[in-house]
């Protein structure tokens, strides 16, 4: 019955976009991911795509469309930190992959935002998992003897239906160190770090000698002009550098290098982060990690553990969850967060790692929490959002209610009954 009411309201909302009017979500168990924390029973007022107000004892504005959440949990839209949503449609169909380059001359300049497919069939599946925002990150490509370290630039996308997904191109720079970095720099960490330092020095030099570069009176630089240009905001500390790193010793090395070059960094991977949690916390460096990565899959993550997120959090490190399995499984991020809770991470911290933490670490300050003035990216859940048995029931992105289906769901419905006189192809 409750579900029917919500569904009925959703239909009304679809028929008449709500952005024009005012919507109030009442009787909501709100996790704000903001200073207000958890509101056991409250109201959220949405107007002009933004959160006009949120609180426990709000008066519902006259004329507002009311959605009675009936005590259900309401959270900010989830933020997938580190996916290939929209950039990889089918991994094993290489023509549909736009998340890596093997160019011999472009690395840092590689801009993933140009390849994002607004009509990707993967995006609606992720959205149904409550994901409203994502950082789409490039990965290091291989080429014939290619020795370029930077993977390229990430983009922030919105998962809103019918809108252009890219909300912020060139939102961060990606760099892989550790074993992967070594493989992209002649086979050893010693060359990776040395090459990286040389590249950063070159960019600094280039930044103050561009005229000499243009008139050819400058020594030859390893990186192309496009790469040098792309790295200028990084060396100036204005673009976040996301560094993939796993081994505790490598993490220490990276922290030191970032301090020396005054880089604004985020670490990703960090399976052995718990071993150097205090160093990471002291450097105020946030991390992205997959809380379920607990196997010694390589010699740089022999100390991987399900307690990693909890231990890093306890040390004061800001954590965001990146599930590491691309875009097709992005919807599982909330279950991964549940596993982190089962292994010691406080519940509200797990929600923060799915919402406000990634938003703040990527400078995406308009989303990630339910606060007055923020964009209305909001999900009403059937139960605990970290449970696989729960589902998103109503999703707003910028105040617009989202369609609650995907191609995959339509397929399942098409085949729900078999043996009809006409083949399923006639079911439209």
């Amino acid at each position: 019955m409750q579900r029917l009411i919500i569904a009925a309201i959703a239909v009304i909302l679809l028929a008449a976009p709500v952005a024009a009017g005012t919507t109030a979500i009442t009787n909501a168990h709100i996790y704000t991911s903001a200073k207000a924390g958890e509101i056991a029973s409250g109201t959220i007022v949405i107007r002009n795509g933004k959160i006009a107000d949120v609180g426990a004892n709000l008066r519902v504005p006259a004329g507002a469309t009311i959605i009675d959440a009936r005590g259900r949990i309401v959270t900010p839209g989830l933020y997938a930190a580190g996916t290939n949503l929209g950039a990889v449609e089918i991994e094993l169909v290489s023509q549909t992959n736009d998340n890596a380059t093997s160019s011999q001359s472009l690395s840092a300049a590689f801009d993933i935002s140009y390849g994002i497919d607004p009509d990707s069939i993967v995006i609606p599946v992720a959205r149904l998992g409550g994901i409203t925002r994502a950082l789409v990150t490039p990965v290091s490509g291989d080429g014939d003897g290619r020795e370029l370290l930077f993977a390229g630039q990430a983009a922030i996308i919105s998962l809103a239906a019918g809108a252009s997904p890219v909300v912020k191109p060139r939102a961060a720079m990606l760099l892989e160190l550790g074993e992967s970095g070594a493989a992209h720099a002649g086979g050893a960490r010693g060359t990776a770090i040395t090459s990286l330092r040389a590249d950063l020095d070159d960019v600094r030099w280039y930044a103050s000698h561009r005229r000499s570069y243009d008139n050819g009176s400058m020594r030859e630089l390893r990186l192309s002009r496009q790469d040098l240009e792309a790295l200028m905001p990084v060396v100036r500390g204005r673009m976040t550098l996301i560094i993939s790193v796993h081994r505790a010793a490598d993490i220490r090395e990276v922290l030191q290098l970032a301090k020396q070059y005054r880089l604004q960094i985020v670490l990703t991977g960090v399976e052995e982060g718990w071993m150097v949690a205090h160093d990471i916390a002291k450097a105020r460096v946030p991390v992205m990690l997959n809380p379920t990565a607990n196997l010694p899959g390589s010699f740089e993550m022999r100390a991987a553990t399900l307690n990693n997120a909890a231990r890093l959090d306890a040390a004061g490190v800001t954590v965001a969850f990146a599930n590491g399995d691309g875009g097709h499984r992005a919807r599982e991020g909330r279950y991964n967060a549940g596993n982190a809770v089962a292994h010691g991470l406080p519940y509200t911290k797990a929600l923060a790692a799915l919402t406000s933490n990634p938003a703040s670490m990527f400078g995406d300050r308009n989303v990630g929490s339910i606060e007055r003035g923020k964009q209305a990216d909001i999900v009403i859940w059937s139960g605990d959002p970290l449970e696989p048995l729960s589902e998103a029931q109503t999703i707003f992105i910028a105040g617009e209610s989202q369609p609650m289906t995907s191609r995959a769901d339509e397929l399942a419905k098409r085949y729900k009954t078999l043996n009809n006189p006409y083949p399923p192809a006639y079911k439209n």
Partner: protein
Amino acid sequence: MATLHFSAAILAATILLAGCATTEGPVAPKPAGPNLDPQVDSNPFPSTYKALPSAPTALVGATIFTGTGQKIDNGTVLIRDGKIESVGGNISVPADYDRVDAKGKWITPGIIDAHSHLGVYPQPRVNAVSDGNEATNPNTAQVWAEHSVWPQDEGFNAVRRGGVTSMLILPGSANLFGGRSVTLKNVPAITMQAMKFPGAPYGLKMACGENPKRVYGSKGGAPSTRMGNVAGYRAAWLEAAQYAQKWDAYRASEGKGDAPARDLKLDTLVGVLKGEILVQNHCYRADEMAVMIDIAKEFGYKISAFHHGSEGYKVADLLAREGICVATWAGWWGFKIEAIDGVAENAALVHAAGGCAVIHSDDPILSQRLNQEAAAALAAGRKIGLTISEADAIKWITANPAKMLGILDKTGTLENGKMADVVIWSAHPLSVYALAEKVYIDGAVIYDRNDKRRQPKSDFMIDRKAGGTE
């Protein structure tokens, strides 16, 4: 052209083998000695598994999913001599039994992962121990996954912490015939033989679709198309049938004439034709499943399960009719074009059509939480209006995988007389917060989350500061 090339290769191989038989003639005893007749010694690597020590035990007060579709509130499980002695809501505990207070806890049969590569693709995942795909010929039915299993793979310990008590270890899917699979009990052991599930039938890994044609097509060989795949299966079954005939004729002749040359590859295929080895068929697309079913009928064997089976829901009625299980995921889809129609509702739709749905992992991370994957699959089914009980969803990771592995008479449910493979969970097993607290295999506590003495770790993990991969 590719098909011709393939047939030529088979023909050449046959001639070559025939040649071997002649040249080895003087060495081989006449009539064939016991080691030459495949029927005489069909189990050359026998299980040496022995249950760890156990005492008569009573698990008291838990909510029990029996794996038969039943749920018992405030129930008791009695374990004696490694077997389930009784299960129910009104059972008195004999005085000499170890009493485990399981009030507020949940009990299920041990989880069975019907698709695992533990040991053959062990941790760490480096080339030197990557032993899962003998990708040197489209038909390597002669290889046995057990000969690649490294018992020190820490993954075994990790998935046990997720409640997994038995696993089907398969070769990879590069080949049309990838080789024999093996069913293991998830006990820490020094040798593979000490993990082998006593009495479990062997499996034969077959693979449809993209993988074989990509692996061999990219090398300029056969198969390079799906029709090449099918020609490859049929040629192999034909050869196996002829091989079986030769041996039958030789045996009937009571030692007159030369013994046929023994062929390890064909031994395995003949094992399938005789119904002794179960076909475990990697296959994503519905149309290919239908073709594989026809091939099975053409040559008179049975397919036990389609693995991955992303489109099982499109032919759920056919699969139910044929009694073929679908081992699949809830969350994995779209990584290749043959998986693009994978839906989270797959298992639920297969189940609703009266079929045998199984949730499997194919991955050492996912294998640690098959209970959560089953929950996601159940939620997806309910979302499109299917009515499926939680007790039934538990079957997807217990009784149904046991059935497709041919061990349902021994484990997979909590029924009297079966192996006492049991998990005590801290919370409802379909909850993300549920942790396996105690894992029993044949009545022995193999893992205990609250007892350091019952938390095995592999040799590889000694001196790791994480204290295992918890």
